[in-house]
């Protein structure tokens, strides 16, 4: 049998970890990326990554990390993979430390830890406020070392277009577009790993990089991979507004003592600094005294929407609230948040050391993604490490890791769990793929060339049709429209009527997208061609998200419909009859809705079914409560 090879698509933390593990296991990797991998969106992650090191005398435990992650996700995450991820997190951190990541240090020279949302203990390792960049650089360096030893071949400035499937539906390679020459090429592979990130651009503007269109996952979905929990997207409570992007202000701002507030008087026109303390409404601290400003993101985002849209208390009557760090010493802020405060100053033209920042929720992270499996270890309740089922999609030979999969975070992700899951899932997917390759009886070089040629031809025809069409729609115009629809109807608060409208509007946009004509017809670095194709795939994914949101008539994590809210009785706790009655209703609701929504592509749009959630580690006995 000829030497087996693997195609990895995406060069953020997930893809690079998967590639590293495969190369270490002796398999050559062809690594595809839209740009030099060092520029991947992982570099935007700011605050840190969670791992229990228990260095602050709080008796933090891995068990508590598991509980926080499960509950933070409102029980919608399959629990065996969560359990093993939390158990393996400290080892992963140690490896990063050995790679030379510039983690912030305690006076004793060990890695420091900070507080993040949805958690009571200091569990988040960080490198200033550019943790994602620092982690990405370190693994990028490790991959560069392997490139030097001819284990990894990089295909940078290439875009994944489609999978090549054999007659049995097994993934045997890909087609990709060379973004310079605009030529389509087919690549053989014995397994393919997608590590292509989230889909923030479906909302028009988000905290995500402009490459985060979700097009790659949408392409795999349209070729048969099932998509899980699409309706769950995280709206980060604290982002700056902007024309091109909603720039994230890390949750670390709140973890390090930042306070969210608005003036108590609606439409108060005074500058923030002239509003006296007793005329400020610290609504998170009032509504959630136990967690205060560090409630989980879904809770904080809804509270901000409540304070602004429902109570009319937005700053100067606008949809903005204050994120205030001005009470903290400058030197402390510079050391721990310098990178992002610098960014705020650059883009807002305001000094966040002196004036409170102005922020609002923004689309930030897709919890949903390609469905991936795992092999449960009956003895430990976690997963069997290096098993071919781990991170396998529903297409044999196709794996997914990082934000593009649906695992770990359920209905809401906890802060600083994404750098963890991106790295960890990449490592698991790499190990699983190596195990899969060992089990294969034949290699991809046995598949006739005609299968690759046919797929290549299909892709070339799509490109040709776009390049020759004249006088039609503009992809950017349609993208703006899509962003408006999603931001209005599929945001922090949802209602069925609005979701129906959104589905109709997306349908119209899909029609219009068939008429896209390109302003650039050239055959060299034509950026309008891939953009037009991405837009069409974004519309497919937007439809999946909206349809799943329409069908889920409940509130869970980031998915909120007021009509179906089970209200926690105010001032009542366990033991009070009102609370016990609420808990009983909550349990009944779980019987119906504690399920993964699973979307399958059909020519009539997504077909949605519901699959059970594995809750064998911690049964859903008590509702989330951050009061």
């Amino acid at each position: 049998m000829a030497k087996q090879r693997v195609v990895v698509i995406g060069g953020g933390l997930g893809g690079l970890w998967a590639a590293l593990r495969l190369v270490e296991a002796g398999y050559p990797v062809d690594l595809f990326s839209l740009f030099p991998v060092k520029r991947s969106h992982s570099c935007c992650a700011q605050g840190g990554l969670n791992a229990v090191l228990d260095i602050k005398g709080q008796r933090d435990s891995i068990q508590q990390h598991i509980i926080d992650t499960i509950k933070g996700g409102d029980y919608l995450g399959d629990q065996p993979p969560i359990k093993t991820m939390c158990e393996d997190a400290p080892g992963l951190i140690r490896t990063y430390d050995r790679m030379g990541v510039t983690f912030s240090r305690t006076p004793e020279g060990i890695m420091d830890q900070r507080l993040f949302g949805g958690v009571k203990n200091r569990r988040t390792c960080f490198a200033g406020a550019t943790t994602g960049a620092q982690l990405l650089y370190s693994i990028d360096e490790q991959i560069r070392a392997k490139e030097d030893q001819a284990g990894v071949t990089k295909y940078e400035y290439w875009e994944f277009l489609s999978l090549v499937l054999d007659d049995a539906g097994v993934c045997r390679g890909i087609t990709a577009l060379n973004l310079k020459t605009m030529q389509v090429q087919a690549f053989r592979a014995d397994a393919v790993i997608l590590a292509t990130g989230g889909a923030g651009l479906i909302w028009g503007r988000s905290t995500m990089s402009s490459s985060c269109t979700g097009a790659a996952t949408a392409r795999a979905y349209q070729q048969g991979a099932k998509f899980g929990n699409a309706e769950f997207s995280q709206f980060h409570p604290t982002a700056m507004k902007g024309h091109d992007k909603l720039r994230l202000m890390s949750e670390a701002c709140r973890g390090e003592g930042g306070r969210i507030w608005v003036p108590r008087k609606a439409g108060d026109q005074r500058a923030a600094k002239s509003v006296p303390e007793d005329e400020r409404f610290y609504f998170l601290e009032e509504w959630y005294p136990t967690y205060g400003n560090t409630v989980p993101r879904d809770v904080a985002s809804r509270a901000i929407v409540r304070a602004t849209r429902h109570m009319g208390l937005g700053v100067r009557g606008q949809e903005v609230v204050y994120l205030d760090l001005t009470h903290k010493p400058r030197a402390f802020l510079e050391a721990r948040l310098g990178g992002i405060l610098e960014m705020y100053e650059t883009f807002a033209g305001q000094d966040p050391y002196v004036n409170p920042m102005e922020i609002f929720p923004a689309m930030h992270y897709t919890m949903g993604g390609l469905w991936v499996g795992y092999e449960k270890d009956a003895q430990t309740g976690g997963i069997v490490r290096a098993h071919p089922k781990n991170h396998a999609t529903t297409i044999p030979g196709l794996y997914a890791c990082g934000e593009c999969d649906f695992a770990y975070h359920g209905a809401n992700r906890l802060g600083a769990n994404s750098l963890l899951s991106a790295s960890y899932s990449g490592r698991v997917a790499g190990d699983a793929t190596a195990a899969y390759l060992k089990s294969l009886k034949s290699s991809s070089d046995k598949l006739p060339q005609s299968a690759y040629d046919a797929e290549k031809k299909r892709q070339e025809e799509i490109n040709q049709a776009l390049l020759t069409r004249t006088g039609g729609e503009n992809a950017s115009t349609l993208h703006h429209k899509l962003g408006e629809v999603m931001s209005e109807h599929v945001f922090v608060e949802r209602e069925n009527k609005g979701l129906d409208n959104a589905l109709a509007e997306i349908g119209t946009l899909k029609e219009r997208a068939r008429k896209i004509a390109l302003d650039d017809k050239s055959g060299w670095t034509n950026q309008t061609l891939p953009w037009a194709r991405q837009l069409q795939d974004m519309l497919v994914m937007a439809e999946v998200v909206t349809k799943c949101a329409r069908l889920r008539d409940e509130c869970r994590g980031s998915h909120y419909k007021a009509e179906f809210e089970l209200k926690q009785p105010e001032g009542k706790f366990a033991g009070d009859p009102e609370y016990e009655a609420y808990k009983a209703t909550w349990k009944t609701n779980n019987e119906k809705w504690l399920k993964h929504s699973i979307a399958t592509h059909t020519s009539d749009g997504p077909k949605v079914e519901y699959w059970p959630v594995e809750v064998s580690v911690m049964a859903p006995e008590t509702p989330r409560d951050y009061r």
Partner: protein
Amino acid sequence: MEKTIHLRIKRQDGPASSPYWEEFKLPYAPQHNVISALLYLREHPINLRGERVAPVVWESNCMEEVCGACTMIVNGTPRQACAALVDDLAQPIVLEPLVKFPIVRDLHVDRQKMFDALKKVKAWVPLDGSQDIHQHAPRIAPADQALRYAFSRCMTCGCCMEVCPQYHDASAFIGPAPLGQTALHNSHPTGGFFKEERLHALMEKGGLADCGNAQNCVKVCPKDIPLTQAIGELGRQATIQWLRDIFVK
């Protein structure tokens, strides 16, 4: 007259084509940056003569000055276009591609040689595998970590290379950015085990001796990386290495 944003852009259709200038105007709105203006042109690619043309080609990704992709020359200075706010710029805003790297198209250049340079200096900490070995790296003093952090913020954007008088087609000089990364990895407790290999790479032609000490690099670095400090420290290390090579054989 309606307020506008006026862009004057140096364009080139491909590596072998001749450059030409093209101008565009778009309606003014507050808080635009150069990338959001270019995004507007992608939707409305109409030049000052009223002709609908191929949209300008450029690179960007993060749009918050951390990925390094959108580096170009804005009004004469190499910088990240996303962080170049229109309200702070004199108009017409003149956009040009970096000159020290081969042109791909318009404002898009090929910076591969910067990544290749990182291979030359072995800018990584060698590991005996990515598995957990149940140990952390050795402890690092907070002050040492602060300096390492400053070096580690390099996003390979190319600004320092662009302004370095010694870094050009006719010279072998490796340029400032890879030197910063060498200092970073030499300063790590275990990365430093392989200092000798990195220093030898820099003691050849195109290495440290080719730095002309113009100190332009530190002035333009968007992340304030102390590049001249790195070069000074590496010079000291290289001298010791040179003596060691002579006497300790």
